[in-house]
């Protein structure tokens, strides 16, 4: 992990792992997932996973519409060479965002 991830990431990663099996750190950032995603949104899911892995909480809050847009269809996972559980990671980001919103 980068220094940035250590500074900002530990907290968010730990919070997400407390909610479930969060594994965005295993992403190699190759972008195959984004190329196969039917929604065609730039940030989804590669950049979003990177922001989560780096612990960029405000970025995730700013991207909450994208987090809730995901269809959880797993087309991305079908081709991911690193076997990242992308849909589960995105569902955990939803849980975290809802908790932030006082759910």
């Amino acid at each position, binding site marked *: 992990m980068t220094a940035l991830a250590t500074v900002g990431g530990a907290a968010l990663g730990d919070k997400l792992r407390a909610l479930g099996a969060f594994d965005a750190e295993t992403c190699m950032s190759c972008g195959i997932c984004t190329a196969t995603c039917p929604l065609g949104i730039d940030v989804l899911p590669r950049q979003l996973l990177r922001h989560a892995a780096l612990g960029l909480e405000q970025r995730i809050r700013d991207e909450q519409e994208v987090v809730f847009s995901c269809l959880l*269809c797993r087309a991305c996972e079908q081709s991911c060479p690193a076997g990242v559980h992308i849909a589960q990671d995105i569902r955990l980001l939803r849980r975290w965002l*809802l908790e932030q919103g006082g759910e």
Partner: protein
Amino acid sequence: MALATADVVGILGDNLRLRGSVLPIPNRRAVHWTRGLELRRGGATVLYTGQMYQLVPYIERLVAAEQQLADSPLARFTGLGRRVNRIVNVSAFMGRPSRTERERSEEAPRRVVALLRGAGVEPGCLFEDDLYSGTLAYDLGLDELVAAHARRVQAVLRRHGVRTAITIDPHTTHMLRTIYPTLLDGWDVDVRSYLEVLAGALAPADALTAAPYASPPPAPVSGSGAAAVALHDSCVYARHEGVVEEPRRLLAAAGVAVLEPEQAGKFTWCCGGPAEALFPERALATAQQRVAQLRAVSSECVTMCPLCLVNLSKAADGAVRFRDIAEVLLDARGDR
């Protein structure tokens, strides 16, 4: 975004917490499909609808109501509407589906009963205890609510002595088979989609003649349906639950040739349905892309999920005919 996401999630979550379903439908409506079928109450093997097919017309109305709300000055009061929803069921104010819409949504479980009976399986039914599985709330990240709801489902199944639950849609199958074991202690119900049950009952000879990814020459069929259809796989069946071969074997055994669109089986393209409640425009664009892929192969298409059926039909706007696989299988049998 139609409305503030947290508000819509909140409305759906409140409904699950307080009323047992994301969009509560009156009990007599949820069980109306059973009329005249003389189904046994409970027992070791039951048909578990999870209300998915019955809910679809209500989801459609919620989406329409949301769009109206989002276009009006009321939009900024949805936080309030959300709080009110804890006390009064806001969804009671949305338009009620018409009788035709409701009856259409009830046809699927009735057809599944006919198909199972044709294969020698006589399922019981839980009637008013056939509860929603919580799938939409789980997708939205409302895990604690869903876990509490799953415990209710578990208690009901135990009370009725259920060992095997035959499901009719991919979302309920996924929740009961894959998610509930992660949420509940001692969940030991055997969960199978009716497609798996029917495919398992096929004679070996039928299974051998069924060539999953080929396009065999159309065989004459006795009903009024198409002899060759484009098959739209559900993401949840294909990628989450591994149900890919079963619908192909069943269609082939019924004499219906399967035409594979671009992106089939585990590589299927989503119908956009999961985005419908929160992002209707995106759901429509995704569905339109899928309709184009299917239309390139056939104007007769088959789905196996109520959300796929409604979303793709809407996007096709009459250019392609979509039918549920249960209808096509019964039709091929000359018996709807």
